[in-house]
């Protein structure tokens, strides 16, 4: 939600050059599931810092509460009882935005500037530009954004971009009592994760590994998993990719749209010749913009 206008790397539905004066380091949050005790202090800190209060819900047979991400719950713990190595494990995963390097939400978003990616890697929603179309939901391979009923805007974890912008760690990191959540440069976090993975392998988790999926260009929220060979145990996609629908929207459909645009221009030319000039409204302009490539690759 913080507008770090000087270090924006990508902006939804925008082709004009972006202002990128500052070049910060790429940041990352590392979630070490093997150290997580599911205390939900991170959920509580998220609510406190962002002034979010979800409804007092109900119990439907698990420790998950709130039971899912909502516009007011930007992170939730998900509990999984499983016996992958013949003995019971209770895997507890903090769910929330992964801050993909190649964000499907941003790619899918038709509203200029509703979704931005900062130079530090944080993907942020700017609700004042959001048109509530829900394309970001379809574009996200992790099912993260939620559209609020009250204002039809999309909401999700900001990785506390407001705190990070002034040199603080995200609120969840500050509150985590066991160090299951750590934050720093992506490079440092990978190194820290590798140390944790070595420790887990010594403790009998042969398939421990880092979850930093390449299909979305890597993420700025990574997991240390005890069973990196089975992300499904944690309800994580094995190989997340941006939905083909987004590719369709930005791929095949684009030339068709351009052809349509060409025809429209031709029509307009004859219209101009025959009828004379026409007033161009803002709406026309916007729909025109959306057909352009959304960002420089």
């Amino acid at each position, binding site marked *: 939600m913080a507008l770090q206008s000087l270090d924006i790397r990508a902006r939804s539905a925008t082709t004009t050059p972006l202002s990128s004066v500052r070049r910060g380091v790429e940041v990352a949050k590392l979630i070490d599931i093997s150290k997580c*005790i599911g205390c939900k202090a991170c959920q509580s800190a998220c609510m406190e810092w962002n002034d979010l*209060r979800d409804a007092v*819900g109900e119990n439907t*047979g698990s*420790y998950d509460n709130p039971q899912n991400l909502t516009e007011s719950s930007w992170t939730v713990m998900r509990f999984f009882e499983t016996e992958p190595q013949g003995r019971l494990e209770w895997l507890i995963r903090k769910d929330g935005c992964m801050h993909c390097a190649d964000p499907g939400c941003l790619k899918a978003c038709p509203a200029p500037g509703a979704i931005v990616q900062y130079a530090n890697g944080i993907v942020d929603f700017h609700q004042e530009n959001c048109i509530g179309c829900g394309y970001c939901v379809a574009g996200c391979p992790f099912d993260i954004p939620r559209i609020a009923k009250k204002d039809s805007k999309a909401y999700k974890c900001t990785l506390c971009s407001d705190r990070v912008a002034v040199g603080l760690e995200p609120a969840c990191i500050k509150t985590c009592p*066991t*160090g299951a959540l750590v934050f720093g440069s992506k490079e440092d976090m990978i190194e820290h994760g590798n140390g944790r993975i070595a*420790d887990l392998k010594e403790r009998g988790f042969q398939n421990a590994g880092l979850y930093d999926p390449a299909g979305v260009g890597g993420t700025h929220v990574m997991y240390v998993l005890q069973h990196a060979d089975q992300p499904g145990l944690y309800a994580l996609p094995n190989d997340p990719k941006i939905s083909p629908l987004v590719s369709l929207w930005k791929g095949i459909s684009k030339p068709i749209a351009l052809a349509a645009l060409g025809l429209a221009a031709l029509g307009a030319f004859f219209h101009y010749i025959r009828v004379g000039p026409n007033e161009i409204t803002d709406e026309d302009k916007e729909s025109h913009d959306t057909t352009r490539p959304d960002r420089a690759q």
Partner: protein
Amino acid sequence: MTNSWVDIKNANLVLIMGGNAAEAHPCGFKWVTEAKAHNKAKLVVVDPRFTRSAAVADYYAPIRAGSDIAFLGGVINYLLSHDKIQHEYVKAYTDVSFLVREDFGFKDGLFTGYDTDKHKYADRTSWNYELDAQGYVKTDPTLTHPRCVFNLMKAHYSRYTPEVVTRITGTPQDQFLKICEMIAECSAKDRVMTILYALGWTQHTQGSQMIRAAAMVQLLLGNVGMAGGGLNALRGHSNIQGLTDLGLLTDLLPGYMTLPSEKEADYETYIEKRTPKPMRPNQLNYWSNYPRFHVSLMKAWFGNAATKENNWCFDWLPKLDKPHDVLQVFEDMHNGKINGYICQGFNPLASFPNKAKLVESLSKLEYLVIIDPLATETSEFWKNFGPYNEVDSTKIQTEVFRLPSACFAEDDGSLVNSGRWLQWHWKGAEPPGEAKGDSEIIAELFTRLRAMYRKDGGAFPDAILNLTWPYLRPKSPSPDELAREFNGKALGDVTDPKDPKTVLAKAGDQLDSFAQLRDDGSTSAGCWLFTGAWTSKGNMMARRDNADPSGLGSTLGWAFAWPANRRVLYNRASCDPAGEPWDPRRELIAWTGQKWAGVDVPDFKADSPPEEGMNPFIMNPEGIARFFAVDKMNEGPFPEHYEPMESPLENNPMHPDNPLARNNPAVRVFKGDKEAMGTAKDFPYVATTYRLTEHFHYWTKHAKINAILQPQQFVEIGEDLAKEKGIANGDQVRVWSKRGEIRAVAVVTKRLKRLDVEGKAVHQIGIPIHWGFKGEARPGYLANTLTPFVGDANTNTPEFKAFLVNVAKA
């Protein structure tokens, strides 16, 4: 805790049993992750449920609720029979070589001296050492004498074979043995285990003995006094340690001094019984200082009115007929013997067993005063909340006064953490509305009562009229003044006994240590154990220097730890008899040639050279640690397995033929409560109650965020039982005991497994406690609707952790 939170990081093995540190103490649990990260420590969890502690453990084993002594007895047997003990430590620092009286015995589950009519050990004289003519304990350093503690202990625990352990606890034998192996590794001098426990041990009728059994394991391994070792009670409230230290229990005075009993009506008898003589040569016998602590306390309370001539006002102290713990008080209330009750920072309707009996008891009061920041269930016990509190208000005449108090964040003061650190805190906000600080409320009450006594007199006005009240604003004593008072000060000049010309503290000065306390009336201290917390140099509790030069977490510049700013109790035992550390990497203190010194404050006479033979356990008159508890425990000198009061078994598998030894033979059961206990025929499932991380007791359901995180009451049921009962995950179920019924959502889980106990299947049901009929969370039933009105045979802490229920789909 014998050690501290930070010290957990020094362990090689962390055993969590009788507690659930990750859920109930998530912030302190960080030190377990530190031990794992920096020390490659392993974490073992033994619990009826696979908890969130188990979720991050290296090894977990299930256990039947209430069978921990069988498990620990089996560990003791394993260590002794596999010779996995720290021999030098055990020989030098424990009672293994001490001879026990010839008339001591143990038969059919009962120790000598049991009175079957009174259902208690009426005569405990045989539970003692054999003494020589000088009053010293006789010993056999060869450990061959059949009555030396070592051989008695060996014989006692030889019965706890792995087969027996598995039969009683339901812990699969391979899992039990795996844990024994891991524990046994810590008998090496350079490997140390810590044990973390909490209410999972204390809330049993044999809770105190579970803790003792664990202490015995630690002594056999030589882990007491070591950095990374010890026996560590994780206290359940942020200042429950301070409550115990200041003596707010039925029979205590501040600093673990005790109130006189009816039989100790004169001062000499009282003092003599509490001032022991050394039981081995050259021992420090620290409680020989009892008179200094006691007289200083009475001077703090009664000032000039306390004189040598009037035995320092001894006659004004109440003389106890019996323990008046909370269960006894509510029993008296139930019997109409109490007509008024002041309830400060306490929600007994929610926190004590058998809600129906508590409601009946409170209904018999004329008045009830509630001092609390929250509108508690107790304060509205008289109001009908539908099924959650089905009462007829018209039939309850009790007048309830609610005095809103500040919460901990709205007041300055000190909190004592589990590691015995007194940490000063500063208020973060003013209390809302008419709320006042607790000391202000008590001061108002006291000054008004005193004025009434002054004006109208009374049967016994002396203690009230003579109580010292030296505060600048009598109706609002400041936390600083109270802290300086418990630390203590010199009333006259205090001089050095070795050189009377040297003045250690001038009259009026704050005292620096309890070594300066005197029994001649020249010093005062409200709690001798806290002396050193606010010295002539100022408030030591407010110190925040976390410098840790050794890396062992001995941060002597951070706050103040009782006693004497010591971080690890019994730290003399971290060195061998010659004064060298057992493990050089864990050097807390050592003998320098002139004195004991190191990164911690020595728990020892600082100038006693090793060759003097003084032993590390200075609070015991024999200077060593006891496997054989002599006559200090109500149910015997060695922990023995007894079944919980409500057990799925008809008899105690250890003593199948003796019904007297089915349950703890020394337990106190009131009339009517026995009849309210169920049997396995009607109530076939073992239930246990506990906390969840998302809530703190019955407080945080009043807070919106906590209510969001865990909104609704639930119970946990294993998949096997759920299938048997046709209960699906998320169904509403009813759970009932002989005392009442609750309804809740069923969380059907793999984390509660069926156990095989004595050839039968035992299912356990988990009942989190946090719901009630007040607050932001969804209304629920008080879990203590179900629990039995009975407590530990020593402390009377209620048996919340093992009782019987039935369950069905609602």
